[in-house]
């Protein structure tokens, strides 16, 4: 009994920080969303839908497209790392894919902003290779730029998880299928991916939540309308000091994420209990 008390005492300060600086403000934002003047109501929400319903759809579409692309790419890279038969290519790929993993989002924003612009390095290279003429170039600094930034930055993280799970699979079923003449693509889709789907799901959900709360990428790459809800929240605060609508938009993005986070919690609880 005494050690239990001591253990709680040791954990308590860290827990208090989480409660005080995350959970309390989280509830404040939910309460604030319903505050209209001195009373409570749905005014902030109707205003949010009037002004920003396009941006809500835009946000969901961008984050969903990015999540799907990240999933496909991480399966492809992880699959080649596990099933690839050319040791040199596997080694090169293993060295290559991780680079963007720890690069901060704000740096990703700056890097891709100069690379993907209408007169950025990418178009300059295509023009000097003769693939495009200067008049044909288009900038990618719209929804495509945001998707590229998210996929560029998040794929290595999900791949790391997926490749780790694939590496610890039992090789014997894979070898057996191989001996029976199954192609590597078929082995990947029918044997490997079903066994690592839990890990893949966790990685994708964490990425989804991260992308829903990144402010720097939409600010750096595409701050004009339509943009992501995070940029709208920042605009509401900085330009209007309008905490009501900002909080309502926050609650809407929470709800959009909540469904996804629930799947995640169920997954981790299942693993843990």
């Amino acid at each position, binding site marked *: 009994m005494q050690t239990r008390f001591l253990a709680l005492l040791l954990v308590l300060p860290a827990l208090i920080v989480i409660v005080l600086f995350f959970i309390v403000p989280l509830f404040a934002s939910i309460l604030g969303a319903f505050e209209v003047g001195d009373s409570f109501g749905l005014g902030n929400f109707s205003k949010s839908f009037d002004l920003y319903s396009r941006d809500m759809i835009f946000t969901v579409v961008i984050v969903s497209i990015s999540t799907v692309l990240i999933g496909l790419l991480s399966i492809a890279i992880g699959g080649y790392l596990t099933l690839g038969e050319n040791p040199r290519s596997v080694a090169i790929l293993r060295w290559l894919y991780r680079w963007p993993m720890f690069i901060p989002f704000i740096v990703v924003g700056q890097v891709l902003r100069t690379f993907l612009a209408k007169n950025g390095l990418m178009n300059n290279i295509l023009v000097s290779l003769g693939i495009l003429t200067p008049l044909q170039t288009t900038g990618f600094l719209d929804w495509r730029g945001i998707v590229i930034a998210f996929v560029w930055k998040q794929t290595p993280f999900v791949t790391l998880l997926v490749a780790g799970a694939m590496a610890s699979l039992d090789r014997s079923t894979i070898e057996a299928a191989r001996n029976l003449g199954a192609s590597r693509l078929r082995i990947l889709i029918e044997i490997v991916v079903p066994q690592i789907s839990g890990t893949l799901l966790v990685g994708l959900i964490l990425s989804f939540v991260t992308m829903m709360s990144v402010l720097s990428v939409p600010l750096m790459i595409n701050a004009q309308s339509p943009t992501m809800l995070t940029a709208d929240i920042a605009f509401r605060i900085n330009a209007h000091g309008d905490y009501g609508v900002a909080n309502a938009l926050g609650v809407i993005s929470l709800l959009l*994420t909540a469904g996804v986070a629930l799947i995640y919690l169920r997954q981790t609880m299942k693993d843990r209990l």
Partner: protein
Amino acid sequence: MTAHIDLWWLPRAFILGLLAFIIFGPLTNLLLWTVAEKWYFPHMLPLEYGFTFWQRVFSPRGNAMASLMTSIVVATLTVIASLALAIPAGYALSRLKLPFRGLILLAFLIPQAFPNLPVYVNIARFFYEIGLNGTIAGVVMVHVTHGLVYAVWIATAAFSAVDIDLEEAARSIGAGPLRAFRDVTLPLAAPGLLASAIFVFLESLDEFTGSYFVGAPVVNTLPLLLYTASSGGNYQIASITALLLLVPSIGFMLVVERFLRADVLSKVGH
């Protein structure tokens, strides 16, 4: 004997080359911007190279040096505060009997599992009322909350990886619990704790959203400077700042496996 020529190297080389271009193209672009004196469309490469912008960034009166110092001070304080909270918590979570252990571990994940922008907005409002907005302490508190999951989870894993017999041996020859912890457990867990310290340091160094609401414009960290320079169209200053943030991140990526040994890594989150 038939000569078998493997033509598969062609698509393999093409895809790997494409991937290398996708990853290193933008990074090369950043490097070029840091030394470009003159660069405009439709020239593929800068017209003049030089280090004038570096001189401007690193001049004693330039605000980049001040931002770098602010960022390092904030990140160092964040590490100290996080470890002070995470070492006791990690020890309790790995060694002692704790009710609802799984739930407590999950609680530290909450700041990563919800979109944190609405939270930062309301923290900023709250900090403004109690005078913490625009202070180093306020920014540090926000960074600690966000980084605590790494600190606690890795510290827990690091303590779990230390053989409990060694601690008990120290106790049996007369060391008190604190002494056994200080002289046996803590030094053995040190590499894992160092890894968690580096994680927290990098998280704090790179953090933008919280600093943007709680710190700006008084506490001007490097990411905030990068943002202001870039929105002002000053791509050279922005790129040099980005490079300063990039070097520790990539350096850590290259050495992470040396700090986080497999026996610690396999216990993270358990």
